[in-house]
Structures are given as C-alpha cells and as structure tokens.
C-alpha cells in the first residue's frame, strides 16, 4: 500500500502527515489528528455521523480518502467553538433537546451548520431535507428540527463556520 504526504488544515491548524493511500478522512481526523468528535456509524455513508465541513461544504468523511483531501481546509465539531462558547447550532441542540445519546450529534450539528451556511432561514421542510443524510435513532428528529430553527434565529451557522466557509469562497 502506497503512502502519500498530505497537508490538511483542520480547525485552523495546518498539518503535514504521511498517510496510507486507502486511509479514510474520518480515520485521519480521529487517529492522526486526535479529533474524536467525528464519529463512524456505518460503512456505507448512510448515517452521517462522520459529517464535517470540507472547504465550506458538508461531506461524509468516511467517503473521502485522506489523500484526496490534500490541500483542503476541514472544519470538525471541535472547531465550532466561539471563544469558549458553543456555536448557535450547538446551543440550539441543547435548548431544544435535539440530542439524546449524542453519537450522531457531531455529524448532525455539522450538517445543520452546513445547511445554515447555504440557507440562513430554512423552513421545516428545508431543514428535514438538509439533515436527511444524517440518521438519529434517539430523537425521532422533531426536536432536531426545532434545534436548527432555534439556531437560525440566534446567529445561524456561527462565526467559526462562516469564517471557514468564507475562507474558501
């Protein structure tokens, strides 16, 4: 298996690593960069627990080879922090009880953040469309929809995500 050098910026921190060609981005984030907030829930890109923002777009990091992310800027759930405060999306999930076990939550939060970057004021249908690729087994989704609507009304995607997206537009 061949190895390749990659330069990937994660949450504003540049990194240069040698990775195996077949390594998935989610494993790079978790194992190489030590950012375990991004989770793995399936092998088929159905569950969305591994969702991150890559150059401003939501991607399922289990469907991206690390080598193909060379030169990109990745934002994970750990990067949403705003000077010690949770981002509006994160706050919305707490205020509206949009999580239970919390396993799908980082991916769900990243998808919701990506959605609000594209559509700052989505209606319920648009929210359901936007998070359709993320499975949650605990909540039944209703309060996740409420959480995203709460976030839209309280600052949207948030400053860290907006800065990340603008850096790449």
């Amino acid at each position: 298996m061949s190895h390749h050098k990659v330069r990937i910026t994660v949450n504003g921190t540049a990194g240069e690593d040698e990775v195996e060609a077949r390594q998935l981005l989610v494993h790079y984030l978790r194992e190489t960069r030590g950012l375990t907030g991004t989770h793995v829930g399936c092998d088929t890109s159905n569950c969305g627990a591994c969702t991150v923002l890559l150059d401003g777009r939501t991607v399922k990091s289990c469907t991206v080879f690390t080598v193909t992310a060379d030169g990109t800027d990745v934002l994970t759930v750990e990067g949403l922090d705003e000077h010690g405060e949770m981002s509006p999306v994160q706050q919305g999930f707490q205020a509206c009880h949009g999580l239970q076990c919390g396993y799908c939550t980082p991916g769900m939060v990243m998808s919701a953040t990506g959605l609000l970057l594209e559509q700052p004021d989505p209606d319920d249908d648009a929210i359901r469309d936007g998070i359709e690729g993320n499975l949650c087994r605990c909540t039944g989704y209703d309060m996740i929809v409420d959480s995203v609507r709460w976030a839209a009304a309280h600052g949207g995607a948030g400053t860290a995500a907006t800065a990340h997206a603008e850096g790449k537009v």
Partner: protein
Amino acid sequence: MGSMVGASVVRKEDPALLTGRGTFVDDIRLSGTVHMVFVRSYTAHARILSIDTTGAARLPGVLGVWTNADLEGLPASRSVPGMQRPCLAKDTVHFVGEPVAVVVATDRYLAADAAEAVLVEYEDLPVMASIAAATAEGATPIMDGLPSNVVLEQQLSATDAEAELAAAPHRLAIALVNQRCAAVPMEPTVCLADWQSSGLTIWATSQTPHHMRNEIAQMFGLSQQEVRFVAPDVGGGFGAKASFYPEFLLTAELSRRLRRPVKYVETRSENMTSMVHGRAQEHDVEVGFDDEGHLLALRVRITQDCGGWPDSTGIGLPTLTSFMSGGCYKIPTIAPSFRSVVTNTTPVGSYRGAGRPEASYMIERVVDHVAAELGIDPLDVRRRNFVQPGEMPYATQFEGIVYDEADFPGALDKLLEHVDYEALRTEQAARREDPTAPLLGIGFSTFVEMGGFGPTPLFEQFGYVGGWESANVRLNVDGSAVIKVGTSPHGQGHQTAFAQIVADQLSVPFERITLIHGDTATVQEGIGTMGSRGVPVGGSAVFKAANKVRDKAIRIAAHMLEADESDIELADGRFSVRGAPDQGVDMAEVAVRAFKPHLLPDGFDLGLDETAFHEPTNLSYPSGAHCCVVEIDRDTGKVLIRRYVAVDDCGVVINPLMAKGQIHGGVAQGIAQALIEEVTYAENGQPGAGTLVDYTVPSAKDLPRYETDHLVTPTSFNPLGAKGLGESGATAAPQAVVNAVVDAMGHLGVRTIDMPCTPQKVWRVLNAALAAHENGS
C-alpha cells in the same frame, strides 16, 4: 428555589456531547493498543471442516490468529443449559455473521487484511432460516443433542380457553406477525480490554456494566474487584446492548495473552448480523366476544424465532408478551402459550419494549378486528372492555402482574380532546367517494406496558444478581453534592434527572450536583439501564439516599442551632428553625460540621455520605392512548402520516423536555416498525438487511411531527410516583399506525396487513381489495 422535579431543565450532559468532547469507547486511547477483527461465517449453517490461518498469521502487523481450538477452556455465554454459545464457533456455524476466528494486528486496517486471508472450509448443512423451515416435518435440528428446533415450550395458563371460546357468541381466529427488527444504535458494539497483573479493565458499549463485570469475573474465575467494567458515553442501546457479547470475553482473553490493550470496533455490517435482533414473534390468536364487543376469551399461541443461539435475555421475552396479552382490558379468560424456535439467523434479544410491544400490537389489532367484525366503532370496543380507574391496582390472572394506578378511559378521553374524531370520520367518508383523493385512515392504540423493572425474583431469571438499584449521595464540604448510581444511561439523561431529584431533596443548586455512573470501580453496586428502570428504580434509589443525607443533615443542623430536629426546615440551601427564620445555617456549614466529631452529638457517624437501595416490590405500568391519522396514496400505496398524537401516563414526570424526547424517539421506532423496518433472510439464510442501505432506518424526511400530552396518575409502587416511559412510544405506535392503514381500506373489506406496511405491500392489498370489491358489487 422552586421544585426542580417537573421542570424542563436542559441537560447537563449536552455540552460535552455537542462539542465532540464526549468519551465513547473508540475515543479512548491507551498506548500499545492492538486491534481485533473477526472472521465471520458467510454461510448460515455448516460444519467447519478446516480453518487455515497460516497465510494470515504471516501478514504485516499480525500478532496472532485464534480459532475455537486455540481458546480451550474459555467459557461460553450464559444461556439455556446445554445451549451455551461459544465465543468462536466450534465445529458448526449457526448463522451468517457468527465469528469463527479472530485476528489481532497492530492496526485495524492490517487486522482486516489478515481476516480476509483466513481460509475456512465449510460443509454446508440444511438451512433453517425461518420458523416454518425449522418446524417443518423432517427439519434438521440445529442444536446438537436436541431432537427438534423447539428449544422451549410453555403454557402460562391453567386452561387453553377452548371451552370459553366455544361458548362465546362470536369467535375469530387471527394470525399476526411481529416482524424481526434491528435496534441499530448509531454506535455499534465497541470494546477495549486491558488485562494487567492487577486485574482486568474493560471499556465497552453496554447498558449493564455491573452485570457484565459479574459475568466476566465468573467466566475468568476472578474476584469482582479484579474486573473493572466501564460503560462511558454509550451511543444508544435500545435493549440490544444489554446482552453479553463474545467480544467482551475475547478482547479480555487476548489482552491477557498478548499483554497489551486489545480493542474491537464492530463495523455496521457486522452489527447488523451480530447484535441481537428484536421482536420476531408470530401469534396465532383466537378471541371470543359477544354482540357488543365484550371480550370473553383470548387464546394466544406465540412462536418466537430465537435465532441461531438462544440469548439469555431473548429467551425470556415471550413470557413478558404472555403476561401483557390482555392489554388494558378485562378479559375473563386469557390463555397464552409460547414456543421458542432456533433458526439459522442472528440471535434474538431485547429491543425497545422487549416483549411488551408484541403483546400490545396483538391485543390492539384484535380489538380492531372485533370492531370490524361487529361493524361497531373501535373506540366503543375499547371503552366497553377497559379496566376502570376504580379497579386499580388491578391484579391480572398472572401472579405478580398487578397493574398500578392508571386511568385507561381517561387517557382516551384526553386524546380525543386533541383529535376531532367526528370531523375525521366525515373527511374519511368524503375521500372514499372521491377516487382522486388519498384514502384517510384513523388508528388508535390504548395500551399498557411494563416499566421500572425488577423486582429481584424476575431479574434472577435473566441471570442478574438482583432487580434493585443502588445509589450513593454525598454532600461535599463546599455544599456541592455527588451522586453515584448503578443505572448506566445511553441517552436517557440520568445526569439531569437525578440531579433534579437531589436538588429538591437537599436544596442544593442543580448546577452543583454531579452524577457518576457506568464504572464499576467508582460505583460499587448496580444492575443497569433497561426496561424503563432509570427513574422508577434508579431514581427511587437516588431519592432514598438523598433523604438519608437530608435526615442526617437535619440532625447536625438541629445540634448546631440547639433546636429540636422536628423544628428544622430546609429551604434555599439553608436550615432554619421553624418560627425563627433568622436562626440558620447553610448547607456548606452543615457539611463541614459533619466532619468535626467534637462539635457533634456523641456517637455521630461522620460525613454526609449515604447509600440506599431500591428494590421495586412490583413493576410499574406506563399506559396511554395514541392516535395516528394516515393518508394512503392510491397510485403508489405510500402511507403518509398526517398526524400522530400521543397521550402518555408515565406517572410523575421528572423533566417534561426529556420525557418528550423519550416519547418522540419511541414513537419514531414504532412508526418505523409499522412502515419501514424488517430484517429479512433468504431461504439459504443470507441476510437481506446487512447494511443501512438495505435496512432503512427512517430519516427526518420519513417521520412526522408528533403531538404529545400527559395524564399524570402517580404510581404508588415507588416513592417518586414515576412509572417510566422509555418504551411507551415503541409499544404504542406500531398498532396505531397499522390500525390506521387497515382503517383506511376498511370499506373495501381489508381486515389485515402485516408490518412493515411498505408502499408495495399496501398497493397490493389495496388493489386486491378493489378488484374483489368490484367483482363483488
């Protein structure tokens, strides 16, 4: 400070989970960790002729490859005597996905490579992939030494109700299937074992860390103190993480052999075939009733598909189904019996509701059948048969199954305050006349289930030490409090709920209360989280421990204030003398004083640190009434849920926000069972639902908004008055949806449809009914 119990407090556990700083098992990093990967059977029933591990063992990074023969002496999982499952298949494989060998390598990618290189030669045996196949004449017995595939058979009543059925004015036979479902917690099974000379530490995705500690200690011949089992953040369980899995034992054994931490991370595809499935029951029902729909006799013959090995929890589930077969109705004669059948499929265990949803689906479908047969409203049949509030507690015919306080008719009345039933029926009639309009169906579910599991005699049957729960509450010298509790949550919000309970009892601010759970090194005793036992049993233990601390603190305060204990009041974190509010001491002062023996009454036991156990004398019985309104597209058969309304009676609600979350989640899983989910097998035992591509867990687009309300009938069976509600939604919803689907097509003579009501199935039933209707008219 107002009462915290009953307040919609946001959860303490959320910030860590929302910022990626939660600690799930795969997030734990121990230096030197190596990775275990299984070689799993690709065939459903076969004799293992040979396993060649030599090629795999030579691959880069591989530390070893083991088969059953290499693990002599490693005990099997607890099960029905004579049917204990070995960690790795011995001689024969029983289902696709059964582990036959295991590889450990320095990296999980390398371990997966090596697992691919293990060569297993099988000689195929006849596959019994369904109840029908396993019980057919001449079926091949799956279990060595057993003449048939029926591994357990029991009649739970003195009569088979034949005389009562024969005497009833009407008699109806109904066949119902509660299809096999998968729990699909978003986090699959993961474990990390580190065997040191001082003992074994194992972190694993489990709902029952203490039970697992006890099992592992016994299996390895260790003292319980030598095994530390930790369930950190757990990504959902839904009952399926209450079972004991061979990987817990294997990682431990291989860590002992390799002297390194060994980690196992299940893939989703593995999870779909190796984590226990739920439901998988077939019901042959006969019901006798009179002209008004009074139910007179019920005979239920249950056949459970228990999969390739009887799971120690799974095997007990038909008993619970039998106990609950009368639902919330007074039926003079109930005759349940069951048989459990092994098949060449994944073992069946508990899944949200575990045995009760099956009963509830059965009796609620029966009630609708009776209504249809007599041409009367399904609500009238329900009302005529309800156990009445004045008859509570209601002793069913089954010993020890006593329904606590409840108001079944009241729940239905409250539901109908939210639903304009008459208007819906009018709309339904209009739509039936308009061939371009989608059909409308209205379905009800009035249900009762079991919560607050124990008591101990019941839990002993599942191999547990007890059915109680333990809690310790300690007041620190700064006035903050720590709770240790034996329940081990996986999304239920125990940190928040239990802090609310303690905040009220000790008048300590909610923010200053911490919960420790899920680690047998810090919480000495416990049973676990399943069967809605968190608040009713765990919460009751917390309540009792907090009360003991409070009583002791009052004694100290009385001594400090030179007053009589009976005159001490506690409010807003301050003890004062009744009638003299200026005289007082605050909680922190009392906590400090608790450690100063020279300033306390003689013989005072130092510290404010109390442990309490709560043994439920009885189960609690959450109940309620749900209504589902569906629209069926005539061209595609797709069922759209237009409204879902749930009125639940879980007794006292600790946190309405979290209660709503539990109901939503349960209802979502119930709707999914009714419309979408099914684990299927081909005749050759190949799973048709091996990934999330072919087992479709619903997304946000597939589920409706939910409307919820509560009826509060506190239970007298525990000091909090709480019944639990984690399983209510999953218990109530399937039949609310299916009753609505059948109701939508009832005018065409449709009486039944099996779950899941997929568009194709509904379309077929609808078109067959239309054709028959046109031919008949």
